[in-house]
């Protein structure tokens, strides 16, 4: 049998998974063919590498690591759903405060006291912020 046909069988030979007849053919061939013999050695070595990898052990502290991660995820959820809205509300409030300051200066400089579109928009924001904070208060109460 030629090298090409033998080569196809080598991996099955290496894992002892060939019918007796084929096994004998391979053995006969490699006894006189160095190239196929070397190929077989590579496969056997490759299987040895797989066996070595099978002995690797998982991190013994993996449970602690997993629990730490799940708690971290919970904390980031609290940050996401509680602290972030609070922080956003604070920023909006500060924005409104600056808005008022700015509008005071603006209106002091203006003779007439007609509501501008800008001011109407700010007032709408104010209502939104009040709702938002009351929602956050509610959240804290229900989670205590």
């Amino acid at each position, binding site marked *: 049998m030629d090298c090409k046909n033998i*080569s*196809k069988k*080598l*991996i*099955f030979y290496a894992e002892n998974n060939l019918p007796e007849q084929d096994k004998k053919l391979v053995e006969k061939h490699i006894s006189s063919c160095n*190239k196929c013999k*070397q*190929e077989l050695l*590579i*496969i056997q*070595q*490759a299987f040895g*590498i*797989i066996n070595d*990898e*099978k002995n*690797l*052990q*998982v*991190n013994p502290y*993996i*449970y602690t*690591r*997993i*629990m730490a*991660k*799940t708690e971290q*995820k919970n904390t980031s959820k609290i940050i996401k759903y509680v602290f972030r809205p609070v922080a956003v509300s604070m920023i909006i409030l500060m924005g409104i405060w600056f808005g008022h300051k700015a509008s005071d200066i603006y209106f002091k400089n203006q003779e007439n006291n007609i509501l501008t579109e800008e001011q109407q928009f700010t007032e709408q924001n104010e209502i939104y912020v009040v709702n938002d904070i009351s929602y956050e208060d509610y959240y804290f109460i229900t989670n205590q």
Partner: protein
Amino acid sequence: MPDFELIKKINQNDDQEAFKTIIEKYKQLVFGIAIGFFHDNETANDIVQDVFIKFWQIRKDFELKSKFSTWLYKVTTNHCVNVQRRKKIITAFSFLSSKNSEDKNLEQKLLQNTKMPEKDSFREEHIKNALNKAINSLPKRQRIAFILNKYQNFSYKDISEIMDLSVSSVESLLHRAKTNLQEKLSDTYKNLNN
């Protein structure tokens, strides 16, 4: 305690002790599969972590339709394939700017051997690289079947359940996987002798 009772405890009472028991029971198996895909301790540990965190996150909606282990191996192989795909994309991009990291590692290891060039360790490293590349380049289903079979010694029947295939399909997948590996490893012989 059987798996379904542990799962029930986790599912209904957020029972961390039961969760711990499940992790202790299956962590090495999940790790072994991940090693087959990545050949790297750190990545394999990350996979174990991801898989169990995922389970903990979905525990409330988790329904045990088949064996828990089958579900777990399915999730593990899917996750490994996805992570591998992402890593391949990253490697493809980094290849544009620098040399392949595997080649770099090999070069570095060889440089570290400042004494006599150790022919055996070079050969071993070369075969290891070739084997990992060969496994990674197998088509997805062949790769999964091969890893489950060679790294975990799962039977054809186990693999057929994990992969939702018939036993004969698994058999033919494995046959093709091994023939492909044989061809790729033959090239290694040529490279080692050039």
